[in-house]
Each structure stands twice: as C-alpha cells, then as structure tokens.
C-alpha cells in the first residue's frame, strides 16, 4: 500500500535522488499492510544516531502506530527554536 514520506529541515538530505527539486520535500513509498511506524523507520536511510520527531498525518505519533494507505509520515530533527 502507498504512503507518503515527508522529510524536513536537514533530513531533506535523505530524500531520494530526483526528489527535492522545486521545494519538494516528500515522496511516495510502498509498505506492506500491518507495518508500524517503527517498522518503517528502521528501513529508512536515517543514520542510527539521528534523532527525529515524527508526525502521522500532522499529529502526534507513536512507533507502534499502524500505517494505512494514504498516510503522510513527516520526519524532522527535534531542533526547536523560533
């Protein structure tokens, strides 16, 4: 099933090649039904030492949350400020 992954701030560097032109910061991604956020995160190219915050459809999310078709997963460094 298809979801969208959005990478913000310095994590834009993990966008797949070809994505990131013209202010684009998200891309479609296929996952198997029953995948949780936690399951997905370990497959992404983020480094093991990268700290991150995730939002699911713009809201507070837990690694145990299941993903559904059409979901938007937003990932960004927990920098704060401004």
């Amino acid at each position: 099933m298809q979801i969208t992954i959005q990478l913000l701030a310095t994590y834009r560097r993990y966008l797949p090649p070809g994505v990131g032109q013209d202010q684009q910061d998200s891309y479609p991604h296929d996952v198997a039904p029953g995948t949780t956020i936690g399951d997905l995160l370990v497959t992404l190219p983020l480094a093991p030492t990268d700290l991150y915050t995730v939002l699911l459809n713009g809201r507070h999310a837990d690694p145990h949350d299941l993903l559904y078709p059409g979901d938007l997963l937003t990932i960004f460094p927990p920098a704060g400020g401004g």
Partner: protein
Amino acid sequence: MYGWHGRLLRVDLTNSSFREEPIPEDDARRLIGGRGLAIKYLFEGMDPHADPLSPDNLLIMATGPLTSTPAPTGNRYMVCCKSPLTGALTRSNSGGVFPTMLKRSGYDLVIFEGRAPHPVYLYINDRHVELRDATHLWGRETQEADAALKAETHPKACVACIGPAGENGVLYAAILNDCHRAAARSGVGAVMGAKNLKAVAAAGTMIPALYDEKAMRAVVREAVGELAAAIKKGHSMRIYGTSYVPDVTNAAGVFPTHNFQFGQFDGTPRINGPFLKDNFLIRNGGCYGCPLACARITEVKGEIWGEQFAGKGEGPEYETIGSLGSACGVDNMAAVTKANYLCNELGLDTISMGLTVSCAMEMYTKGILTEAEIGRPLPFGDAEGLLEMIRLTAARQGFGEELAQGSWRLAHKHGHPEMSITAKKQEFASYDPRGIKGLGLNFATSNIGASHMTGDTAYTELFGTGKKIDGLTYDGKAELVKHFQDVFTILDAAGLCVFVTLRYTLDTANGYQPTRLVDIINGATGAGYTRDTLLEAGDRVYTLERLFLTKAGFSRADDTLTPRMAEPMPAGPIQGETIDLSRMLDDYYRARGWDPNGIPTRAKLEALGIAGWT
C-alpha cells in the same frame, strides 16, 4: 561579586543627572539577575498603575551575570518596564553585540527614570557616563542613527536605539541594537520614545572576574562540544536558522494563516528555510561569541525581485515569516524579507505589526473595514499593501494611526474581538495554540501577554526536543507550563539565549532539568545554587512579576486568549480543535501556589521569602 560589577546606573532623565548604586549581593542571588533584578527595581521605583508612556514608568536595560562571560550565548540583555501595549510587564530580549558592550561599559543594569526635556542619548564608556543631546538624531531610522552614534562616540561603541516608530509612540515599537537585532515586544521602543531617549551607546573593557573560571569553562566545553558535533552532522538551526520552522508548523497544521483562521498555508514552500537560503542568504551571522551563529545575513536584489522589495539586512526569522508572511497571506519571500528590513529600520515589532495588518486584512475581506477607511484595498496576500501599512504605522499617518494602536484596539473598535489574535492585548507568536495546548496556557498566563519566549513548551509539544509529547492533550500541561516558565525566566535573567542553552545546558530528555546550567551559573558567580534553588529563584522572579500585575489590576479574568481560539480549526491535521483554558487554569494556579483567582497567596510568598514585597 563574581560575574557581576555589583552596580547599576540610575539615570534621572528629567533632571539630566545620573548616579551609581550598588546591587545588594543577596538580591542578586535570590533573583538571579537581569529580568529578575529588574522586577525588584520596578516594584520599588514605580506605581503599578502608572501610565506606561508617562515619566513615571521606569525603563530598565538589564544584562545578566553571564552576559560577557564564556557561557555559551552569554551575550543577551533584557528591556523591562510597564508596557503601553498591554498595561502588563515587558520582558523584551535581544542579543547581537550591544549587551556584551553594555556589560563591559561597567554596569550590570541601567535604570531610566522620568522624561528628558529634549531628545537625548546616553553614552557610557568604561564607567564614564554622558547624557548628550540627540536633537540632531531624532527622526532618523535605526541604521542611520547607529552609524551617526558610532561616529560621534567611539568606533567600538555598540548602539541600541529607537526609530521613528518609537519616537511616534507606536504601541509595539521596538528598540534595535547593532542595526538588525531587536528588543521588540510590548512597545519598549515607545516607552523609550516617550522619555525622549533616542539611544544608548556603550563601549568598554570592564569584564567582571569569574568565581571559578576553570570549572565553568570545563562545563561550557562539554556543552559546546556536543553542539559542535551536531553542527558537523548537520544542525537545522545552523543551516536554516529559525526559518526551518515553517515546514514543521505547516505539517502540524499550526502555521498561522490568514490571521489564524487556518493552520496550513499553500505558500509555505515559497517562504520556508530552503527558499530563503537558496535565494536570499549571503552568509550566517551570529551574536557575540555564540557557537551556533544561526542568523541570516540576507539581501533582496531589486533587479531579480522588484525594486520595491530591494534591500539588505538580517532575517527574516521564523516569527516574522509567520506574522508578515502566512498570517497576511503573503507568499512572496522577497516581500516578507523587505517587510522585515522595514520593521528593523523604522523600529517595529514584526510580530505585532504583522498580526495587526492581518487583523485589518480580515476585516477588509469581510467588509468590516472599507477601502475608503484604509485608503486602499487590503486583501490577504497584498505584499505592497503590507509594506505601505508598515510605513504608515511608523509615521502614524492615515490608517497607520489605527494600526499603531495594535490589533486589540482595532478589532474591539469594530466589534470583532475574535479578529485580534492576542492575549492581554499582545499578539500571539506564530504557533496556533489549538494544536499546542500547553503553549496556549503559557500565552494566557504569561506576565507580558502572549509570548512564546516566556515558556516555549512547543519545544516538547511540537518539535520533540528531548522528548515528544502530544500537543493536543491537556493532562500534565499545567505543571509543564510552570516548569518551562521558570526555566525561561532563569535563562532570561542569566543573560543567555534559549536556542543553544535549552538543548545543551538542560537535560531535555529528563524533564528539562538545569544540569549543566546550574554548574555554569555557579562557576561564573559562586552563587552556590542547586538545581532546586535555581528553579525556585525562577519561580520567585515569575511570582514577583505576577504580584506586580496583580497590583496593576490583573487577575484570572485576564488570563484569556482571543475568542478565535474557541472556533474549531476548520481544516488540516488539527481540524475541529479548539483550546479550553478552563481545563488547565485551576491546575496551573495550584502548581504556582496562587489562589483560584490567580493571585499569589501569602503562603506562597512566604515560602519564596518575598512576603515583605506586598
């Protein structure tokens, strides 16, 4: 006293005189410094009912014990007085270089009393003080005034000054230092203008000795080392400054759009960090000695973007991108950047300026204000209209006379209080509290009216610094807000910047405890705080401020938010959300030790050792 000069300068503008006063060490310890000491002098020196634009208001410029020390970001000062915008207190903070020079000029604090008979400026150089005529500078924009003052005082002098907006009494006029830095909120510039005080120029070499410099530097090295490692990997604040934030708040549906009617803005990709960096950034800038250097030194080239937007300067920062950008529906980054430059040159708070214009835009859109009244159409997205409104406001000409009073007076005059996005008449920071409940409680209970910098719980409710909690829940938010308010009070009072110290001198993963912070403060001052007594000192300062507000007539009835916050968010990730303060306010007063009407109790004052202050 280590870290301190142990003296303040009291300037009687009415009689053109000044004198030094010692600062009691006991007060310094109990109130930390800066903002904390300022409230003591406000309490002792003025009537809380005084008219903020009268000679009876005090204007205090307060450095902290860590200003001009090796502490990371030890380079800030506060401007404290009674606010003409809110009638409450101010706590207006700025960095750059001026605060360090003010400390090095030989004083921990400068207190201005009365009103000068004609425009003046204060020049201090290594404890040599002069009150000089500023008639020839009155009317000049801030950058012009800055250059002129350096030329006539000392090439190494740093300047804090007002522009035409402060001279003309715009209720949210700012004090600019080093041309591009601002003590912006709550109308501190108007108070300075009302005193006929154009500027302060400070130069000097006097640096107080530190208690245990070696121990202090060891802790600082740890903190800065961690920051340096993060910068090496790629730190969002170094790469984008605060301008990385629009993408985050937009994703979370809390990015103020069209005067906080919505929480997501179509134009976000054109006013975000990457867009600013790719098109306008020349290089990073930073405050004196800061290891992060997150500031944006920028330029808008007229030949590319239009001559009406051409300019050079610093910024915009996130708050400004919200208030002058998405809140006004303006998705033209050149225009937002130019608007920021204008506010700096004229001496205006970008947050209140933007949200007052967006208030007018909403009223125009809904037919409550007419083109005839404004002098032109003013729909959302009108970039040139925005720039014209800024100029008119600073000059208090035409419709600018209305705008100069702020959105609360404008909206109430026309019978639409929900269109003024304020708490205690001060405009919100660029975060919609319907999605960040704790921050909403902070806006409502802040001693200076709506401000994120009095206790920015968005760090944990949205960004997840240290720990991510849900912004939509109410449980535990009262205690969270109290803690953040106390922590931010400490950072303000010490003379530090939140952007580095929050993450690297507090243990953000474990309740934001002041782990390294207490060691850094003790290393500088020898004050001997524990984590608990330092937090208690923050609570003490916060409560004293609240006591001043109480005497000025504030209570629970004023701990409110704009009626807009009861309107369900119409769309986006937090569709349907409102914010209900009644679910947090009683718990908050209990956590603070105040009575159900929001008044500090006798027992609380005794526990803090300030019962004699009533």
